[in-house]
């Protein structure tokens, strides 16, 4: 059995009485794309925030690459090889693409400015947005901005990449491109991915395994096909639709 890159054990997060994440355990082996789905308010983003250290858990443990990181502050987790993107694209508007992505290399072991800039160029070419290098990000299209944020997250070759709804607002064609890119992150750069997504087609298409949350609780785990046919999952989403 391959050792888990990320192991979350019995994680619970409460916000003034409300239980956002309820005793969730999951483990992700290396070089896998793990999908995380669930209706709105299921606790997916909170789980992300707990894993990356932005939110403190009330109980439970997190192990990353064999190291207990439960008490580690967010910037140390990032330096240890865990990066993420955000639901709403968070770039520095006055900066160019180059400067924004260079931020991703802040914690990288000491490289020269020149080497860092070369790494940025490489990652941008890999994502197909090379020409945006010196343009202010405020001028870029929405899809380009999303890719710049992803570039910032992967430029330091993280071990684990957490993507928070990367397909939101993208056209069908852009989603397909993203799909292919995610696969290449794993095969070409050896990155493990934890993917939160509402666009179910993308998740089921690209994931190796899927975890389903509802009301903070883990209600199902398995292969995409198993999940697609799981009654509890359907009920959870239907429940959402019924209340919508």
């Amino acid at each position: 059995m391959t050792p888990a890159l990320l192991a979350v054990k019995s994680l619970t997060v409460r916000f003034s009485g409300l239980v956002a994440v309820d005793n969730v355990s999951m483990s992700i082996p290396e070089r896998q794309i793990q999908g995380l789905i669930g209706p709105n308010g299921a606790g997916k983003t909170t789980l992300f925030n707990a894993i990356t250290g932005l939110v403190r858990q009330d109980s439970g443990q997190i192990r990353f690459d064999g190291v207990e990181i439960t008490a580690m502050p967010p910037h140390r987790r990032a330096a240890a090889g865990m990066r993420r993107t955000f639901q709403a694209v968070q770039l520095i508007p006055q900066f160019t693409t180059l400067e924004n992505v260079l931020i991703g290399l802040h914690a990288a072991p000491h490289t020269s400015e020149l080497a860092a800039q070369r790494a940025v160029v490489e990652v941008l070419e890999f994502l197909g947005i090379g020409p945006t290098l010196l343009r202010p990000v405020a001028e870029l299209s929405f899809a380009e901005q999303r890719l710049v944020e992803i570039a910032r997250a992967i430029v330091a070759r993280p071990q684990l990449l957490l993507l928070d709804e990367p397909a939101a607002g993208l056209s069908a064609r852009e989603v397909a491109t993203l799909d292919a890119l995610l696969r290449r992150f794993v095969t070409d750069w050896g990155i493990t991915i934890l993917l939160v997504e509402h666009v179910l087609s993308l998740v089921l298409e690209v994931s190796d395994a899927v975890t389903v949350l509802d009301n903070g609780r883990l209600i199902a785990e398995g292969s995409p096909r198993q999940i697609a046919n799981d009654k509890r999952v359907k009920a959870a989403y239907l429940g959402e639709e019924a209340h919508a």
Partner: protein
Amino acid sequence: MSLTTLVVAGLANGSLYALVALGLVLIFKTQDVVNFAHGEILMVGAFIGFTAFDRLALPYPLAFVIAVLLGGVLGAVVERTAFRRLAHEQHITLAMVTVGLSFFLKGAVRLPYGGDIYTFPPAFGAAGPLVFGDAIIAPQNLLTIGVALALSVLMFLFFGFTSLGKQMRATQQNMTGARIVGIDTGRVFSVTWSLAAAIGAGAGVLAAPISLLYPDMGTGFLLKGFAAAVLGGFESIPGAVIGGFIVGIIEMLFGGYISTAFQQVSAFVIIIIVLFVRPYGLLGRKPLHRV
């Protein structure tokens, strides 16, 4: 000087600090910004009162009212011309505007009055001090304490129970949300600034007989008002008042039992200690760790 006298004097000064703190908390509660010009507004109020009372020989209550009204107008004007345009900017921008305003006001008062130090004759003329046991209390001090308490109670009721007060709180928590719900945030801001400036100017007229009048007097009051507000937890009106009294008393005790030089820095010491030990003050709430 007996302890009681010191304490009462401390209460009197403290009520001034409480008023300053009130003005700071008001603006902070609505716009989430610290008004660095608040000390200067107090100073302007004091000089307006001085001009009216000493130069134009108007009666003290009238001088007070004039200062308060003009203060309110000043606040509304500042809000309309500078702040309205900047409501969406970063805090640093807004704060910088208040810094600019503070210097502008200082210079504007220094122009006619120069760097001289003036004294303000007391409101009750030659009325002697009242004696309670071994405590000697000047009537001016009693007036100050009384006005401060009355205003604080009014503010507290206003914020807690009137619809405008609730609108102001809503605007501070979420300006866009408040707009969506139909609150006229422009009016809220105008009222806030007018009120805060009016209180500040009024505090200035009350301060004038107790303190010395000079264009640079504002900073000291700003810092002490801030110490009071911090002590009370920056978002609490009763806290600001209690904080003001405490600062006033501690300052008097420092001055009475240690030295007058030390009295000047007592506010700083309080600020630093409070922020170290209990950053959300005596009555403030522990901030939620939101992500």
